[in-house]
């Protein structure tokens, strides 16, 4: 490789990193997130490019071990959160609602706290808010497996085959989660049907 090519590659990397930094520092907008018009693209990753969600074993609030493999065949919303994270706490009532609404259709929510104080911080909060979906306590190893989880909330939507169908970092509109969960529950892992419905779904994705 010539010196010019190496220089260009490094410059491109530096610019890309800079652009990422700029895009992540957007100023805030106020208002209700549940009704936010800024709905992100609700499309799921194409089945062919989904990668397997890393397996883990974590303790729940009762001291029982939870493994991702226990949920094979179910759609799982895996949410990394902390008691000090206000955007996380905005989403959690929705997850409670989804857990109740879709539980009988093969859906589960797993809340994974990264609180350093552990259950001493998590249990009182969960009790105060009356959340019933399964809560786990993360470890550094599991957080690393899931990309480091540097910012919260970070949520993975996992399909029935245990593959990651969507990843959300930061607060996301409730409708986006609901759409993705329903797509994964209603179709073969959210894959676009080959028949007449495809055009409508594509139109939906493009308009959102």
């Amino acid at each position, binding site marked *: 490789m010539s010196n010019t090519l190496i220089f260009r590659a490094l410059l491109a990397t*530096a610019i890309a990193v800079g652009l990422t930094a700029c895009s992540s520092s957007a100023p805030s907008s106020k208002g209700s997130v549940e009704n936010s018009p800024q709905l992100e693209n609700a499309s799921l990753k194409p089945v062919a490019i989904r990668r397997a969600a890393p397996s883990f074993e974590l303790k729940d609030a009762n001291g029982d071990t939870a493994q991702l493999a226990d949920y094979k065949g179910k759609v799982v919303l895996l949410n990394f959160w902390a008691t000090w994270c206000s955007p996380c706490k905005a989403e959690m009532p929705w997850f409670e609602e989804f857990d109740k609404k879709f539980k009988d259709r093969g859906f589960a929510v797993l809340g994974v706290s990264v609180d350093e104080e552990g259950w001493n911080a998590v249990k009182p909060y969960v009790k105060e808010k009356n959340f019933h979906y399964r809560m786990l306590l993360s470890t550094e190893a599991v957080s690393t497996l899931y990309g480091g989880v540097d910012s919260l909330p970070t949520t993975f939507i996992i399909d029935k085959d245990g593959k990651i169908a969507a990843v959300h970092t930061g607060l996301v509109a409730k409708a986006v989660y609901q759409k993705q969960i329903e797509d994964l529950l209603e179709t073969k892992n959210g894959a676009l049907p080959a028949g007449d419905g495809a055009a409508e779904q594509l139109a939906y994705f493009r308009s959102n």
Partner: protein
Amino acid sequence: MVRCLLAMGLLSSSLTFGQTNVLTLGKIPTVKAKLGSTVTVKVPLQVRLGYHVNSNTPSDKYLVPLKVTWEKGMLASTDVIFPKPSLETYKFQATPLSVFSGTFEITTKFKVAPTAPVGPMAMSGTVSYQACNDRECLQPAKLPVTLQVDIVR
């Protein structure tokens, strides 16, 4: 070519570092401290645009407060004074949060030990904070602070 690669590497790493460093420290002039006196030191801080840090008195018991701690030495911290926080409303929470954003200063008063050795010394401290923007929060973090102190009679 080696110099060029090094420069580009530094540029790239500084951009990456800047992305994770939400709270940055401004320049603190050398502190002139007379033996046995009380000195006031202002620590200037800047929060990255679009982000905020919880104030020293957060609105919610679960939030991580802004704190300043100083190591024990010839200067003993006697009081830490924070500016008045802003009450800001974000789309993720109906009630306002007590926060700092933009630039602000934390003031610390130190009592200088009468037996301190005259001459230059360094004083170390830590600003503990937790930052968020309107969509996401970052892990609690610590920012080291070093004061250059010149102890005089």
